[in-house]
């Protein structure tokens, strides 16, 4: 029997959503200041409007005064799933008013793509977008990648932080307190912000020839997109715009940093370097990276693309790092990516589907789940081959020795299967709209794994059903299903419960 949610349930959800809306209203100050600095008054007005709408939501939430503002799991999951619906819609206001989108849905698509760190875009004439708006769309990567909820958790602790934290697809608590963990994650981001922007700024001036101010601006935007494995770029030709091997290498460092779990960041931060060699997730991602890189290089070499070894390795390494970390930067146009031969195309598709590490800003199935799935399979085979009474050890190393229990194995396999189903569903919708199988699968995985590489199916003229499908995939992929399913369950209970 389903229990219909009561007034207190709605008050608790409203209360927390209100607080998150206030945080978002506060975040608007950064693009607004950017607009004032650049004397971009139309974008400034749209930022004020957006802040006003967030403040209204916040004020409405503040009016609901639940008797006890403590979230249980179902409330937390519903708050997370709803936050990831409302914030992209309100966050799309400045984009919708920019004149760079055919209709408001396109602007919401880009805002959701930004927040979910996907990077697919249906924007028109990006190269003439106002800098403050360009800053905002990249800042969406930063807010979404770090976690909207995490931003809120850093500012207010309150009860129920843990359920919100887990709801946003994070399962690694570094410190006993969620607030301390959230602050550590922000510390990692801020340190990388300083070094990343400095590095990209210098490389932009020295190797690309940008003027210093423009180089810092591009460096900041590329940092947001690389460290949060987003994939938006300041220019329409993505990182191909810079034509610089050095710039690609600098961005790769940030992409790798973004795809690393914050647990691994913490281990390195504390100089526990032995963790790198022993961690199951690190071993898995290194193996899958080498595998997909080899496939891509062989595929490109067989097709005779990119001539010599230097050009071939540069293109393949950058694109595989971009795909595997779930970033989605490109140095080749989508029309060129489409004609990559079978093996290279396969290498890229697999890299995108697998994704980065768990509890990072990357999307996809995640290396930890891949490693554990392989371990479950290996243990099953060993159990069959060994004498009946023998016991197969089911331990693995991930920030310490852990036991692979049956519930953990079931959860890993279930989520991995859900990702496969999500990829296939999107591909099916693509095929139904006339796309070839390989292109439909590539674009679907790119959306579902929050990557952002495109072979051209995503553009301003795409069918609405396909667009909505990719939006649902970005939403489900970013939240790793549980929060979204909880929201659906909550709505069903509201309608059919007693």
């Amino acid at each position, binding site marked *: 029997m389903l229990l219909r949610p009561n007034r207190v349930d709605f008050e608790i959800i409203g209360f927390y959503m209100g607080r998150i809306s206030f945080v978002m209203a506060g975040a608007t100050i950064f693009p607004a200041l950017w607009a004032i600095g650049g004397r971009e008054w139309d974008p400034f007005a749209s930022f004020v409007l957006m802040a006003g709408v967030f403040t209204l939501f916040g004020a409405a939430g503040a009016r609901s005064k639940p008797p006890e503002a403590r979230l249980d799991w179902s409330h937390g999951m519903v708050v997370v799933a709803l936050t990831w619906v409302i914030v992209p819609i309100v966050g799309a206001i400045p984009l919708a008013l920019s004149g760079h989108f055919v209709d408001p849905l396109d602007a919401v698509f880009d805002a959701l793509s930004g927040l979910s760190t996907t990077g697919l875009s249906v924007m028109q004439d990006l190269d003439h977008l106002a800098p403050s708006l360009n800053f905002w769309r990249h800042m969406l990567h930063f807010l979404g990648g770090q976690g909207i909820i995490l931003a809120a958790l850093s500012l207010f602790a309150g009860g129920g932080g843990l359920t919100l934290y887990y709801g946003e697809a994070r399962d690694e608590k570094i410190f006993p307190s969620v607030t301390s963990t959230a602050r550590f994650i922000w510390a990692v981001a801020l340190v990388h912000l300083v070094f990343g922007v400095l590095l990209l700024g210098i490389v932009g001036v020295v190797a690309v020839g940008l003027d210093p101010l423009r180089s810092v601006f591009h460096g900041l935007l590329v940092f947001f997109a690389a460290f949060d494995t987003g994939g938006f770029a300041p220019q329409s030709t993505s990182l191909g715009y810079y034509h610089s091997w050095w710039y690609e290498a600098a961005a790769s460092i940030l992409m790798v940093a973004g795809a690393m779990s914050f647990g691994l960041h913490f281990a390195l931060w504390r*100089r526990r370097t032995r963790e790198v060699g022993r961690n199951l997730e690190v071993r898995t991602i290194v193996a899958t990276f080498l595998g997909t890189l080899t496939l891509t290089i062989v595929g490109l070499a067989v097709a005779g693309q990119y001539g010599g070894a230097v050009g071939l390795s540069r293109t393949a390494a950058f694109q595989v790092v971009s795909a595997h970390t779930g970033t989605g930067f490109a140095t080749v146009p989508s029309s060129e990516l489409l004609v990559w031969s079978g093996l290279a195309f396969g290498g890229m598709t697999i890299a995108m589907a697998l994704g980065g590490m768990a509890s990072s800003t990357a999307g996809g199935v995640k290396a930890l789940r891949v490693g554990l799935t392989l371990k479950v399979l290996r243990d099953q085979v060993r159990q069959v081959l060994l004498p009946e009474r023998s016991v197969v050890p089911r331990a693995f190393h991930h920030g310490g020795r852990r036991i692979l229990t049956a519930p953990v194995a079931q959860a890993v396999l279930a989520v991995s299967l859900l990702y496969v189903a999500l990829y296939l569903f999107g591909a099916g919708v693509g095929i139904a709209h006339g796309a070839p199988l390989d292109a439909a699968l590539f674009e679907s995985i790119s959306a579902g794994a929050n990557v952002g590489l495109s072979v051209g199916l995503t553009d301003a003229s795409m069918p609405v059903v396909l667009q909505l499908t990719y939006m649902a995939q970005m939403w489900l992929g970013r939240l790793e299903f549980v929060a979204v399913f909880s929201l659906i369950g909550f709505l069903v209970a509201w309608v059919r419960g007693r």
Partner: protein
Amino acid sequence: MRRRAPLDQFRAGLLVFVWEAVFVTVAILVALALAVLVLAIV
């Protein structure tokens, strides 16, 4: 949790950044070696 001075935190972060740069350098060299090997075979 033992609180660390901001400068210590910054230094620790720089070290992580250097580790990431080393990983990317190794990845680039591996890709180059693979490309040379594959082109020699193909």
